[in-house]
């Protein structure tokens, strides 16, 4: 019973099963948006479905108990398989130069026989050179007049698969370490201010960093066509009250301090002031520019009404920054309306015979930094490099074995050749052997 379980645990059948199961279940997590607050799911799926989702933790599926269990089984599967097969592979590799039984070599797929006018000694020299070139350092066995030459090369390519397997374990281990000891969160810092608080993902738990980050400034640049070109936060790290480093953080250009990596993630407008709003009176087509601050009214040109900005929002339903404006007239109710700015609103907002347009404002930005610490990353990187190394061993090297027997015949010598190689080598080994021997034996 135990043997059976062990055998299954170490089997490729389990590997294939786990690959398919992980692939199939992963699909769910891409169909159900992950990590939203609970109410959202209630709204989309209804309460009955939600208790099902909750039980299987489908709303945070990739960290659920059963997904972790599948990954754990994968790790066990790889480990068991490596324990089962690696010792044999290593033993096979250390038993390199040996005298093989002819009954064994007769079964190899490549077989070749020829006769040559060269005497045995000359042939031995030639074939020793040839074996070295085709495979590796040869072993020569002399028995009376008979010579046997055995050589082998690229045996270490058989270690490629175990290397890949062990590197996968490294990556999984790195991921586990990261999810236990690492953390990931977001900091929001207004220009000119300083913070040491990160809000953790998922949820909103606060974590205090051992240092503070001051945002000296934030800038966003656009290309001519309006697409964003650069988001940049200029920050200063303040550690134990002292400024220790000043850096610019851009997307794809993070900054790491004491193992904490700071990445540019988002931005927004915290406050705005000094709104420059152009007011065009439609009848006379005269335009004047008013500078306003929140709740400070100014007279509306050419009338007894006045006009004020009541509120600023950084983004009005995707139209970009906007102000809520009010027209105040004696004896009339307040007339409240939105003036969006930005690309979509080039023609301005019309109201009571005037056209209002935001020409500009002074913004105070905040920057959103992603802050994270992941002690598992070096293991993951090592795993990645080794995976590629393992692939290279498998792809670019083949395990080649060559066995040759030279016996004297009346006029020269007779050579029998047997050879064997990986599937991936295809017929190229066989071709080069046939070519070389055709040349050697044509000598007459």
């Amino acid at each position, binding site marked *: 019973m135990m043997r059976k379980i062990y055998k299954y645990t170490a089997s490729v059948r389990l590997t294939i099963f786990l690959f398919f199961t992980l692939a199939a279940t992963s699909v769910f997590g891409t169909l159900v948006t992950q990590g939203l607050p609970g109410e959202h799911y209630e709204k989309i799926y209804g309460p009955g479905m939600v208790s099902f989702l909750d039980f299987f933790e489908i709303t945070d599926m990739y960290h659920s108990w059963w997904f972790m269990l599948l990954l754990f089984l994968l790790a066990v599967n790889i480990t068991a398989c490596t324990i089962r097969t690696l010792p044999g592979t290593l033993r096979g590799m250390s038993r390199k130069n040996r005298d093989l039984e002819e009954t064994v070599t007769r079964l190899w797929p490549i077989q070749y026989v020829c006769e040559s006018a060269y005497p045995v000694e000359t042939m031995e020299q030639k074939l020793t050179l040839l074996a070295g070139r085709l495979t590796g350092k040869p072993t020569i066995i002399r028995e009376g007049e008979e010579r046997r030459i055995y050589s082998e090369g690229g045996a270490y390519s058989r270690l490629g698969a175990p290397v890949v397997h062990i590197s996968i374990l490294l990556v999984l281990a790195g991921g586990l370490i990261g999810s236990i000891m690492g953390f990931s969160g977001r900091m929001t810092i207004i220009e000119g201010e300083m913070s040491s608080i990160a809000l953790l993902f998922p949820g909103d738990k606060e974590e205090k960093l051992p240092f503070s980050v001051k945002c000296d400034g934030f800038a966003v640049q656009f*290309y001519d066509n309006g697409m964003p070109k650069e988001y940049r936060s200029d920050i200063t790290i303040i550690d134990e009250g002292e400024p220790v480093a000043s850096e610019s953080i851009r997307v794809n250009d993070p900054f790491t301090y004491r193992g904490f990596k700071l990445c540019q993630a988002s931005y927004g407008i915290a406050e705005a002031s000094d709104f420059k709003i152009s007011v065009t009176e439609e009848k006379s087509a005269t335009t004047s520019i008013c500078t306003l601050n929140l709740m400070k009214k100014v007279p509306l040109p050419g009338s007894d009404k006045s006009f004020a900005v009541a509120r600023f929002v950084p983004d009005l339903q995707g139209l970009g920054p906007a102000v809520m404006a009010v027209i105040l007239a004696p004896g009339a109710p307040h007339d409240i309306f939105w003036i969006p700015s930005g690309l979509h609103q080039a023609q301005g907002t019309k109201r009571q015979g005037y056209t209002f347009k935001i020409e500009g404002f002074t913004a105070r930005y905040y920057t959103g930094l992603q802050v994270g610490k992941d002690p598992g990353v070096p293991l993951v990187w090592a795993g990645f490099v080794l995976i590629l190394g393992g692939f290279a061993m498998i792809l670019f090297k083949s395990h080649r074995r060559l066995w040759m027997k030279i016996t004297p015949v009346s006029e020269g010598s007779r050579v029998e050749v047997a050879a064997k190689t990986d599937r991936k080598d295809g017929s190229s080994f066989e071709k080069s052997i046939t070519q070389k021997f055709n040349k050697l034996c044509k000598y007459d």
Partner: protein
Amino acid sequence: MIEMNDTFLVSISTFFYFFGALVFFAAFVFQKRSMQNAAILFVVGGFSIETAAIIIRWAFSYQMGFGHAPLSNLYESLVFFSWSVVVILFATWKRHRNDIIGTLASFFAFILLAYASLSGNVTTQIQPLIPALQSNWLISHVVSSFLAYACFAISFITSILYLIRVRAGRRIERILPDYDVFDDLGYRITSIGFVLLSLGIITGAVWADTAWGRYWGWDPKETWSLITWMIYGAYIHARLARGWKGTSMALISIIGFIAVIFTYLGVNYILSGLHSYM
């Protein structure tokens, strides 16, 4: 310069691939060696023109002041995908001069280009790079991913052909004699594709770590690339360690390619995520 721009060249190579596919099919039906040579000439011609188009587009982007490799939006990725499919077709051509694989592969390259030029929702404009794409990892990530996709496309083709041959049995023995070739070639190409896909996922992870501060976030595109990787991982193990052949391998390859297409397009059209090719 306006007339001879890169999108115009791409349209020309679209026609070359189409005629290449037609002549390949004729070579297959009439079993004529000379037609086969004509077909491969069409495809080589289309490929040269497409390569020129990619280089010209690259140069244009520098003239426009924001130079970058043409791998940054849906149009450019479709063009590169078709280019990769033809590269892999040439790679198989060295081993097996198979007309029907030639037909289907050049037809697939044609379809990709036709979709790129004719579909209304694919912009052909050269756009500057948004901040997230401004990375040295962009080229290696996209190139290895699309070469992998191209390998899987050819493997999909050989798998379909294998299944047709096995289903139809003796009746089409005369026109599709060597169906073991489909199985063998499919396996070889898929294992190359698997290595390239691994490289694509790894470079993507390293890039994500510098751009977003995490190497893996279970974003739908990342997850689908992993789903694809596991399907082909199962394929590789089924062959190497369990000796599967034939129909079951062909079926896994077909499921794998559906996952590839979903990773490439479905995620963008149906699901939402960070990878904004559209």
